[in-house]
């Protein structure tokens, strides 16, 4: 990992000498990764600091705000509530993977495009986690009710939008995905 650029490298790069480390191998957004990580480091810090995948945001670091939500082995999880060492052997998916779902293999996913069109974000801090949760919802339920969308969003705090536009974007994305199939 040392060959990668380190945009916010200070915390990650040099753990103290007596820091307990463990080697882990995992797949992140389709890429195989093997590296050493501090045993006590939570998964969100690992993604952001060690892998420079800073799309995953950290709000509360105790499982309430939902900003750090990613996929672990195909389902959503709070990455602040897992240790990085627990992800050994797992397949992770972060928000950075979504933009490969656009029509020609890059560009915004239908859900991201709907967020853009419907003004589903303002400051954007909560958005990565919300996108991962709604992507799971739309995978499991292609025609969710507004209530199902709101229940999914209950695991996320957004202080800008009042949620109305996020709900509208999710329902719009579901319709777009259905009509594209």
């Amino acid at each position, binding site marked *: 990992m040392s060959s990668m650029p380190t945009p916010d490298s200070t*915390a990650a790069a040099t753990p103290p000498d007596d*820091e*307990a480390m*463990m080697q882990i191998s995992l797949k992140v957004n389709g890429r195989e990764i093997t590296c050493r990580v*501090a*045993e*006590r*480091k*939570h998964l969100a*810090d690992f993604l952001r600091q060690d892998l420079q995948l800073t799309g995953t945001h950290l709000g509360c*670091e*105790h*499982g309430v705000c*939902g900003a750090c*939500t990613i996929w*672990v082995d195909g*389902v*959503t*999880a*709070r990455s*602040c*509530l*897992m*240790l990085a*060492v*627990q992800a*050994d052997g797992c397949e992770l998916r972060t928000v950075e993977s979504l933009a490969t779902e656009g029509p020609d293999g890059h560009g915004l996913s239908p859900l991201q495009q709907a967020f853009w069109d419907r003004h589903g974000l303002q400051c954007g801090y909560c958005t990565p986690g919300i996108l991962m*949760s709604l992507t*799971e*919802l739309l995978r499991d339920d292609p025609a969710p009710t507004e209530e199902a969308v709101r*229940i*999914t969003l*209950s*695991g996320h705090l957004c202080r800008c939008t009042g949620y109305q536009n996020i709900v509208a974007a999710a329902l719009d994305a579901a319709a777009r995905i259905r009509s594209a199939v």
Partner: protein
Amino acid sequence: MKPPAFRYHAPRTLEEAVRLANELPNPRLLAGGQSLLPMLNFRLLAPDHVIDLNRVAGLAGIQETATGIVFGAMTRQRDIEFSPIVKRRLPLLSEAIQWVGHRQTRNRGTIGGSLCHLDPSAEQPTVAIAMDATVSIAGPGATRELPMREFALDLMTSALADGEILASVRIAPWANSHGWAFLEFARRHGDYAIVSVAVLLELDGEQRASRVSITLGGVASTPVRVPQAEAVLLGSRIEAGDIEAAAACCAAVEALGDPQVPAWYRQRLARTLTARALPIALARARGDKQ
């Protein structure tokens, strides 16, 4: 990096996990992590060793046995939520599990973790108390069983001794015709309940209540059965007055208070939720008989 320094262990068998829990100084068991990780991130806990149970073989799964439905301690809440066995045989648990956290936390959280953490507002201990569940505990050399009511000692305090690990929990289903209801009040769906109520009812051929369980979560230091309320209903045909009287018993349970939620507020909620839950359970018990 928020958690304090500790050494991490990921045993593959229950025997190895028990051995580590006995040999290592100041250990902490890690199940789904949805409560432990926040406590570590806040540094409310400073274990020297974390023993991760997620890779222990055979500690997860739902089995239908002659004496009840057996849940491995590491069975995830998601798997309970989508289990056809639970939906059919333990509808109270099926209903309650929808209130546990959010999809994103149920994907990781486990029934065993919740039973050991014993937050007084948590849904799974409330159901386990309501249904007289039996827990199975692995220790060095032996396994022992305890009724849930003896396992839930006090506020966030289980009867697990140092070096013991919760292996499974067994819940005996009620008669197929029973009625049930689980209701709770929280400020946001998925937050810990301020108060929850679990109700189970069986009716005899004359529509009289032959078996009743009423349990409050979030009121006292552990979930509590309310035998006075149950006694009001037992043997009766359950009219509106009986429901009011049972709800009044629930309002009389000694309640915890804090600056945000005073005791009297919890007691009022206990009354209101019980008065709402009983008709639901009653309709289900009657409906199944028709």
